[in-house]
Structures are given as C-alpha cells and as structure tokens.
C-alpha cells in the first residue's frame, strides 16, 4: 500500500483537506506528521506540505517552518527521490528551505486573492502532472497573499528551458514572474504550486481538475 505523510505546522490549515484528498483518491495510508518530529515514517511514497499560515507568516511566509526539525528529514527524503508536493504555504516553505528556486513575494496588487483561477498545464511529463495534457487549461482555486513568484531572469530562463514550469496562470493573478504558478526541482520529484488541487477533487466543490493531479501521481508511483 502506498504511504503518504502530510506535514503539519502551527498555523497550517489545509492539512486535513490534503490528507483527505490523498487518502480518498490514492488510498494511501496517510499520516499527519507534526513539525517537531525529527524523523518521518519509513517507506513514504509521498510527502505533502500543506497550505496555511505557518507561524503566522512571521518574518516571511514559510521562513520559520522551513527551519523546523522535520524539514531536515523532508530535505533528505527529497534528495532520495521521494515525491514532495508543496501547495500554497507549502510552496513558500519549499522555496525557503531551498528545495525549490525563487521566492514568493507579496501579491503585486497588495490584496489577498481568493478565487478559482484558470491555469495552463505547461509540462504533463512529470509524475505530478501526467493526469493532464500539455497546454490544457484547468481551473483550481487560489487563496494567498504572497504568491508573486520571483526569480532572476537567468533562473527563469533555466526553469523554462528545462521544462520545470508545471503550471502558469492563464490570467493575471498576483504579478508572478512569467505567470508562473508552479515549478519543479531539477530532479522533477518536488513540485511547489500556489493553487490548491486538494480543494477541487469532486463536483461538489465546483470541479474536479485538482483530482487528476493525485490520480496521475498514484499511477506514476504505483
């Protein structure tokens, strides 16, 4: 059976949604792991860093959480090739931890953005996006204040050249460089994205475009 862990920080608020999505869609034995743990459960097939406002966004969004004890174990697992999915605050934490390039800055329009947005799937060849077609337009909600992706031009060129842009916003959302909504690490086993796929997994929620991310993931992992 597939095994997954969702990391929980003080101030996480999408941890249960993420665990439910993973459990329901993939059937994985999914545990919630408190950030003070220095070790992760053994034999994990997936680690998810959920959304929320870890540590009240003190210092910078994700900055404190990225230095939590459990993150050393997450970094080690990512290095061994374990898939790591960071959503929203999880994306911020992964950039702060150095697992993903760039930084998530305050939205260019200053305001918190909370709505369903159109995304273009840029790369469907990854373990996270194989449930989509390249160039496909999907709809997934965002809810963030700091989603404005920034990296220097050389880094952005490299990300694009290496197929490491997973999703782009199909409309202006937060001022992100080159409309980037999600990126992979160089090995392709770490994905950070601002939109919340776990909030779009069944019709009741207004759509199920997020569901295919998890469906694709389980096919790739199995």
């Amino acid at each position: 059976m597939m095994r997954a862990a969702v990391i929980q920080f003080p101030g996480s608020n999408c941890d249960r949604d993420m665990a439910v999505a993973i459990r329901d869609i993939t059937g994985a034995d999914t545990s919630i792991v408190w950030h003070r743990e220095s070790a992760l459960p053994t034999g994990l097939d997936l680690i998810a860093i959920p959304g929320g406002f870890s540590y009240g966004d003190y210092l910078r969004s994700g900055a404190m959480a990225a230095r939590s004890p459990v993150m050393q174990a997450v970094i080690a697992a990512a290095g061994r090739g374990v898939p790591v999915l960071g959503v929203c605050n999880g994306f911020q934490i992964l950039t702060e931890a150095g697992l993903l390039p760039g930084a998530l800055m305050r939205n260019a329009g200053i305001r918190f953005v909370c709505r369903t947005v159109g995304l273009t799937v840029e790369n469907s060849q990854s373990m996270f996006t194989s449930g989509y077609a390249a160039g496909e337009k999907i709809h997934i909600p965002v809810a963030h204040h700091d989603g404005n992706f920034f990296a220097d031009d050389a880094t952005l060129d490299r990300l694009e050249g290496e197929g490491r842009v997973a999703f782009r916003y199909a409309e202006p959302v937060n001022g992100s460089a080159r409309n980037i909504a999600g990126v992979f690490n160089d090995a392709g086993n770490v994905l950070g994205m601002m939109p919340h796929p776990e909030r779009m997994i069944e019709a009741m929620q207004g759509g199920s475009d997020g569901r295919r991310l998890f469906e694709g993931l389980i096919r790739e992992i199995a």
Partner: protein
Amino acid sequence: MKTRIFVTLKNGVLDPQGKAIHHAIEGLGFSGVHDVRAGRLIEIEHEPGLSKADLESMCTKLLANMVIENFEIEQA
C-alpha cells in the same frame, strides 16, 4: 550588547508594500516623494563575544532571504 540588522529588498525587486505606502503618503497631501521601499529592522541583544561571522550566518540562514533581500549589520 545590541546589534541592528537591516533587511531590505534588492534593487530591481518590485515592492508592492512600498508602493502602497507611497500612495498613502501622497494621499495625506505630502508631495515630492519619488519612491518608497519598505524593509525590516531586527534588533539583537547578545553577548559581546558573538562574532560578526555568526551574525552574518544568522542573516543568510534565516533573517534575510538572499533570493530577494540584502542585509546590513550595524553594531552599536
């Protein structure tokens, strides 16, 4: 002993917060302000023996995000 650490956005990094402050200043009727950039001041009380290298290391490991920010260390 006290050290002050100033964390500021790098040149060229857009600062929406600074822009909003600039707007608010103009809204109060002040004119002649060209640009506003917001940063962060962190004051650290510490033993006199704490080395500059340790302070720099605190900055690069936590206090500043070197992708977007610079820091300056001011020792009293």
